C-alpha cells in the first residue's frame, strides 16, 4: 500500500510503539492515581514521562497543565465549551474543521456570539482581520493552525500577539501541525493547544491532549473519579486532575510516549523539512497535469503536508477508487469534515481528493501517485 492519508491518521507507527502498548497490557499494569502498588506506580511514571515529553515538545513550562484527552475533537470541545457562556463572543476562521465549527454553532444557538475571520482564496487569514473582529465581550479566539483540507498555515503567532494584547485567550487546533511543524506555546502566545496523539505525533488512535495555560480556567465537561481529593463532592481545582476524570488510556499513552521518544530522536524540524520536500514534489507534479486543479498556496509557499485537488469532470470518490485499484494508493476523497473550509475554497459542491504524505512516505511513492493521477486525468 502507498499510504497518503496521514492527515487522517499517521501510518506506519515508529518502532517501539506497538511494543510499548503490549508492555502496558502485559507488563506493568494498574490504574495510576487509584492505588499504590509498585506496578501502578510504574504506570504513573510512564504517564508522567509522556506528559513531560509533550510539554517539552511544545515549550510548555509546567507539564501539569497538559491534560490527556481522547483526540483533538475531545480537547477542542473541552476548551470551547469549558470557556464560553451565553453572552460571550468568540472569533474563529473560515478554515475551521467541524471539531471547532460545530461546537461554536451549537453554542451560538445557546446565546454565544460568533464572528468568522474570512480567509483568502488560498485559505489563509490576515491577522489584522481578527483584530477588527475583537469586541468588549470577546472571550476566545479559536484558530486552526494548519488546514486539514489544503494545508494552509495560519499566522498563529501574529494572531496570538493580537489576542494576548487584548487579554483574550487563543485556542489553537493543532490537529495537522503537532509533530509536523514546530510549535512553541510561549513564542506563539498560545493559551490553549488541542492536539492529537495519532497524527503527526505518530502515536496510537485514542490519544490526544489539551494544554491549558496557567491562569486560564475551564469548566470541566466531565466530573468523576480523579484519584485525588476523593472526599470532596466537587471536581478538584488542580490540573490536570480537573480535566482528567476517569481512567486514562494507559496503553495509548504508553504508545504515544514511545512515539515521542522517536520524534525527539529524529527531530520535528527534520520531519517538517522532509514532509515539505515530499509535498512540494507532489504539487510540482500535479501542476503539470492540465486537467488538475490544486487548492491552496502556490508551489514553493509554506503549507502543511496536505494537498487537495480535483480532476476536471471527475468525481473525487471515483478518483480515490481508481488510485486504490490501480496502485493501492490510500487517500481521502470528500469534504474532510470541514464544510466551512470548503465554502471558503469554493469546493463545497464537489469536495476534493486529499493526499497527505507523512514522515515515512518515500519519494518513489509520490512519483507513482503522480503517474497514476496523470493516467486517470488523461482517461487512460
Amino acid at each position, binding site marked *: 500500500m502507498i499510504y497518503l492519508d496521514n492527515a487522517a491518521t499517521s501510518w506506519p507507527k515508529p518502532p517501539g510503539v506497538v511494543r510499548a502498548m503490549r508492555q502496558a497490557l502485559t507488563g506493568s499494569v494498574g490504574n495510576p*492515581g487509584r492505588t499504590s502498588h509498585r506496578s501502578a506506580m510504574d504506570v504513573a511514571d510512564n504517564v508522567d514521562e509522556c506528559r*513531560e515529553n509533550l510539554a517539552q515538545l511544545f515549550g510548555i513550562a509546567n507539564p501539569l497543565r497538559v491534560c490527556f484527552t481522547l483526540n483533538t475533537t475531545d480537547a477542542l470541545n473541552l476548551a470551547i465549551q469549558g470557556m464560553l457562556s451565553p453572552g460571550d463572543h468568540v472569533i474563529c476562521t473560515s478554515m475551521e474543521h467541524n471539531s471547532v465549527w460545530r461546537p461554536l454553532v451549537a453554542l451560538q444557538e445557546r446565546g454565544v456570539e460568533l464572528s468568522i475571520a474570512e480567509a483568502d482564496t488560498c485559505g489563509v487569514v490576515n491577522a489584522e482581520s481578527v483584530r477588527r473582529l475583537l469586541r468588549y465581550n470577546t472571550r476566545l479566539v479559536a484558530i486552526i493552525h494548519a488546514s486539514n483540507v489544503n494545508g494552509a498555515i495560519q499566522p498563529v503567532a501574529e494572531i496570538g500577539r493580537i489576542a494576548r494584547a487584548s487579554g483574550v485567550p487563543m485556542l489553537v487546533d493543532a490537529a495537522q501541525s503537532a509533530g509536523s511543524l514546530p510549535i512553541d506555546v510561549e513564542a506563539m502566545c498560545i493559551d490553549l493547544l488541542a492536539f492529537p496523539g495519532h497524527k503527526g505525533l505518530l502515536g496510537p488512535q485514542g490519544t490526544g491532549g489539551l494544554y491549558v495555560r496557567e491562569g486560564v480556567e475551564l469548566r470541566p465537561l466531565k466530573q468523576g473519579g480523579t484519584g485525588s481529593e476523593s472526599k470532596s463532592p466537587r471536581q478538584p481545582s488542580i490540573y490536570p486532575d480537573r480535566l482528567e476524570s476517569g481512567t486514562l488510556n494507559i496503553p495509548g499513552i504508553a504508545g504515544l510516549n514511545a512515539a515521542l521518544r522517536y520524534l525527539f530522536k529524529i527531530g520535528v524540524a527534520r520531519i517538517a523539512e522532509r514532509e515539505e520536500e515530499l509535498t512540494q514534489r507532489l504539487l510540482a507534479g500535479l501542476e503539470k497535469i492540465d486537467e488538475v486543479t490544486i487548492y491552496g498556496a502556490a508551489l514553493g509557499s509554506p503549507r502543511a503536508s496536505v494537498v487537495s485537488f480535483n480532476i476536471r469532470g471527475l468525481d473525487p470518490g471515483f478518483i480515490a477508487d481508481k488510485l486504490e485499484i490501480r496502485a493501492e494508493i490510500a487517500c481521502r476523497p470528500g469534504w474532510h469534515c470541514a464544510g466551512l473550509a470548503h465554502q471558503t475554497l469554493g469546493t463545497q459542491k464537489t469536495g476534493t481528493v486529499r493526499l497527505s504524505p507523512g514522515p515515512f512516505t518515500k519519494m518513489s511513492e509520490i512519483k507513482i501517485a503522480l503517474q497514476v493521477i496523470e493516467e486517470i486525468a488523461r482517461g487512460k
Partner: protein
Amino acid sequence: MASRLVVFSSLNQVALLKRDLYRSGVYVEMLRTPLSLSFTGCSFAVRCQLADVALILQSCEKRLIKPGGVFDETDETLKTQRRVFSEDELER
C-alpha cells in the same frame, strides 16, 4: 535516619516531583498517603530524608504545587492515628 512524608493532592504532582528530584540526584519513594493523613480523601506522598525536604519544597514552588503538609514518620501520634484503621479497612 528519620524520614518524612510530604503529602500532595494528586499522584500527577508526585510523579512529576519525583522525576524533578531524580534529575537533581535525589531519590524519593512515591506512595499512597496513609489514610490517617489523607485529609481530603485519596492522596499521594513522597517519602524522603529530612535533609531533602527543603529541596522538595523548592521544587514544589517551581512547579506551582501546593503540598498538603510534611509529616514525621516516627511521630508517635501519627503511628497511633495509623493504627485506627484495621487491615480490612485499609484493603477496602
